[in-house]
C-alpha cells in the first residue's frame, strides 16, 4: 500500500493549479486563525467537509480519523480546564466559556488538518516544488521544503516494519509503568533513527549523482499554466478572509464575556 497522502484521481480540485490551491489554503488558514467563536468557525469546517468529496479525500479522512478526532477533542478538554480569558475560571477549574473557547480551538485545529488533507490528497509533492519555484523560491529550497512530505511516508513504512520486528522480539510482553514503556520504545526508535540517518545520507548522494546540484534551469514535468479557473479559485478563496474580517467588524467571531 502507499503511505503517501496523494490520491491519484481526476477531480475538480486535482485539476486546480497548485499555486491557486496554496493561495486558497493560506486564505482559509488566515480566515479561521482570526476567529475564536465556534459558531463563526463552523461554516468554514462545513465548506471543507463539502470540498472533501470533490477532492476524493474519503480514504485519507478514514486513514487519519484518529487524528481528526483526538486532536480537536484534546483541545476542547484542555481549554475547558485551562481557559483564563473573558468569563473563564481559574486554572484546573472547568468553565462554560472555557468549553466554548475549546470548541472553537478544536474546530480551528480540525479545519487546519482538513486543509492539509485536502491539499495533499489533490497535489503531488512534485507539483508543490514546482509551485514554490514559480513563486521565486530557489529550487533547492523548494525541494527541501517538500522533502519532508516525501520522507514522512518512507519513515512511516520503515517504522511499521520495525514495529512488526519489535513486536515479535518482545514476545508480546507489555511494559508496565512510564519508565518501562519509555524503555520499550528504544527498540523502535534506534533502528528507525539509524535507518533514517543512513537513508538521508544515501539520498543526498543519490540526488547529487542524479544532477540535483547542477546549476541552470530545471524542467518541471508537472508544471502547467495558470488559467481562468485557477484565477476564479483565488478570487473565491479571498471570500474566506473577507467574511472572517466582516464578522469581526460586526462584533461576531471573538470570545466575549
Amino acid at each position, binding site marked *: *500500500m*502507499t*503511505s*503517501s497522502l*496523494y490520491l*491519484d484521481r481526476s477531480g475538480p480540485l486535482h485539476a486546480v493549479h497548485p499555486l491557486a490551491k496554496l493561495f486558497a489554503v493560506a486564505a482559509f488558514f488566515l480566515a479561521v486563525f482570526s476567529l475564536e467563536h465556534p459558531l463563526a468557525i463552523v461554516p468554514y469546517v462545513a465548506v471543507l467537509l463539502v470540498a472533501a468529496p470533490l477532492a476524493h479525500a474519503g480514504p485519507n479522512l478514514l486513514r487519519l480519523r484518529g487524528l481528526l478526532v483526538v486532536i480537536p477533542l484534546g483541545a476542547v478538554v484542555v481549554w475547558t480546564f485551562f481557559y483564563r480569558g473573558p468569563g473563564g475560571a481559574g486554572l484546573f477549574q472547568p468553565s462554560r466559556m472555557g468549553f466554548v473557547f475549546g470548541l472553537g480551538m478544536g474546530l480551528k485545529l480540525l479545519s487546519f488538518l482538513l486543509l492539509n488533507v485536502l491539499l495533499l490528497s489533490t497535489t*503531488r*509533492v*512534485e507539483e508543490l516544488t514546482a509551485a514554490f519555484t514559480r513563486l521565486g523560491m530557489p529550487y533547492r529550497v523548494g525541494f527541501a521544503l517538500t*522533502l519532508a512530505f*516525501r*520522507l514522512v*511516508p*518512507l519513515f512511516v*513504512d520503515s517504522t511499521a*516494519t*520495525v514495529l*512488526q*520486528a*519489535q*513486536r*515479535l*522480539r*518482545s*514476545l*508480546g*510482553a507489555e511494559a508496565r509503568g512510564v519508565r518501562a514503556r519509555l524503555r520499550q520504545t*528504544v*527498540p*523502535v526508535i*534506534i*533502528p528507525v533513527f*539509524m*535507518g533514517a540517518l*543512513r*537513508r538521508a*545520507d*544515501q*539520498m*543526498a*548522494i*543519490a*540526488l*547529487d*549523482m*542524479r*544532477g*540535483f*546540484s*547542477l*546549476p*541552470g*534551469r*530545471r*524542467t*518541471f*514535468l*508537472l508544471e502547467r499554466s495558470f488559467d481562468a479557473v485557477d484565477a476564479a479559485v483565488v478570487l473565491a478563496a479571498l471570500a474566506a478572509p473577507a467574511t472572517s474580517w466582516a464578522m469581526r467588524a460586526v462584533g461576531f467571531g471573538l470570545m466575549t464575556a
Partner: protein
Amino acid sequence: MSDPLAAGVPSDPLLELRRFRCRYPGAAAPVLDGVDFAVRSGEMVAVMGASGAGKSTLLKCLTGVVPSFVRAEIAGERVAFGRDLGTVEPGALAGRVGIVFQDFEAQLFSTNCALEVGFAPQQLGLPREVIAARSHDALARVGLAGFAARDPATLSGGEKQRLAIAGILALEPQVVLLDEPTTDIDPDGKRAVLDLLRALRAAGVAIVLVEHEILAAEAADRLVLLRDGRIAAQGDAAALLGDVALLDACGVRPRDLDVVRHQLALSERLATLDDAERILRAHGLVPAPEAPARADAPAPAGRGGPILAVENVRFSYESGRVALDDVSLAIEEGEYVALIGQNGSGKTTLAKHLNGLLAPTSGAVYLAGRDVRRLGLGDVAREVGFVFQDPDHQLFCASVEEEVAYGPRHLGLPADEVEARVARALGVCGLEGRRGTDPFVLRKGERQRLAVAAVLATEPRVLILDEPTTGLDYHEQRAILGLLRELHDAGRTIVVITHAPWVVAGHATRAILMSRGRVLVDGGVHQLFRATAALERASFVLPDATLLGLRFGATVRSPEDLAACVQRGGVS
C-alpha cells in the same frame, strides 16, 4: 548549462583509478590498496570479491562520492573522461555517469514511477517531451512498462530495484555503475536486467557491475577479483570464472559446471549444459541414478499433527490486490521448507501469516492445532521465530550479548537460563567472541547471524527466514546455510524464503513454489526438480548441477552430489 567535463578529452578509458589507495578514518587497513582500474566504452566489467573487499568503495571512488560525500584518505590518481576527478564535483558527472547504489530504496523519492525516472532529466533541463519519451523507454527497458502511474512505495523489492536502474537509464549515461543491482530480483528478473546490460554495452555504454552472483559475471567481458582491498586477479571473465580455487579464496561462489569439472579433474571447460553432457558421456562418466543421502529425507513424524497448517487462506491488501488466493498447506515439525517464486508471488505474505503478523482475509492458519488469530502475537512469536530480510530492522541493543539476551529476558527466564541460552545461540551462530561488540559495527553477514541468534535464543519450534543469503558473499552464505542445516539436523523446523535455486536444491527437504498468490508445487525437492511445466510457469530455473544430473536420469542437489554420483556410477 556549462559542462565542467566538456573541456576534458573524452578519450578511453572513461573512468580510471591509478595506483589508488583509500582508507576510511579509524580503519586499521586501507579498503583499497594499490588498485589500477579502468573502464572503456562498450565494455562490461564485473567486480567481485568477499564482503569488505572494497567493491562498493571502488564504485564510490570512481565517481568521487568518496571522498566528497564519504570522508576518506585517498592517494593515487582518479581520472574521469580524461580529467582529474579531484577538480570536478561528483554531481557534474550526472548525465554522463549513472550509479545505482546497493541501498536502492534510498534512491527513490517520487510519487510515481514516471516522475521517478524523469527526475534526473528534469535536473538537466531537458524538454518535457524528451523526458516523457525517455521515461517511457527506460521503464519499458527494465520490464516496468505500464507502471508509470504506480507509486514506488507499492512496488516489490525487485521492482524497486529495476525502477532505480530505469532512473539512471533515463540519463542516457556513457557509464553505468551498479552495486549489486539484482539482489532482490527473482531469477527471471535477473536475466532481464543482464539482457538489458548487454544491450547497453552493445550500444557503447561502459558498465561496471559489482555482484556476488556468478550469473552477472558471466555476462561481463572482464572480471576483477578484489581481495582485502587489492586486485587478486583480473582478466577475461570466462577464463577466471573457471578457476574454482581462486574464486573460493575470493569469497565468490563458482559456477556449478566448473565445480563439477574441478571435482572430476576434467581438463575441458564445461561452458554449457550441452558441453557438460557431451564431455561427461565422452569420458564415460555417468552419474548413478540413486539419490544422495540427504535428498528428500522424509520429514520426522509430527508430534500430533502439523506444526503449522494453512487452510484455504485468502489475503487481499487495502488496495484490493489479492496476495494469497486459496492457499492450503501443512508443515510438519522438523521439515526444511523453501518458499520460492517470483517477486510478488506471495511468499513473504504467506510467511507473515505463519507468524501472525498478517491475518487472513478468509481461511485460517493453525499453530500446533490452535487458530493463530486466537493467540496473541507474543504467543506465536515464542514458537515461530521470524528473521527479517534486513537484519537492521530487528537489532537495537548496545552489544551482541544484550541483543541475544533480549528475547529470553522478555520470556521472564531466570538469569542463569538467559545466560545459558545466550551462550548456546552465540556458539551456534559463531559469534561467541563478539559478545561486547556493537551490532552496528558488524558486517552484514555477521548481523544476519546475530539476528538469527537473537531469535534462536527464544528457542522457537519454527524458524522462518526471509532471504537469509541476500547481500552476503559466498563464505557468509555458506556460514548461514551451515547454521540452518545444523539447526535442522537438531530437529528444528526451518522455513526459508529464497530466490537462490542452489539454496533450494542443496538445503531444503521440501519446496513450495508460488505464483500469483497460489501454490504451484508443494512437495519434496525431487518433485520440484521434475515439475517442468510449473517451473517454467514460475520462471524458476534449477541449478546447472541438478539440470545436468536430470539429463542422466539422476537427481542431484549440488555439484558435489553430481561428482559423488559419477564416482558411484563409475566409468561406463
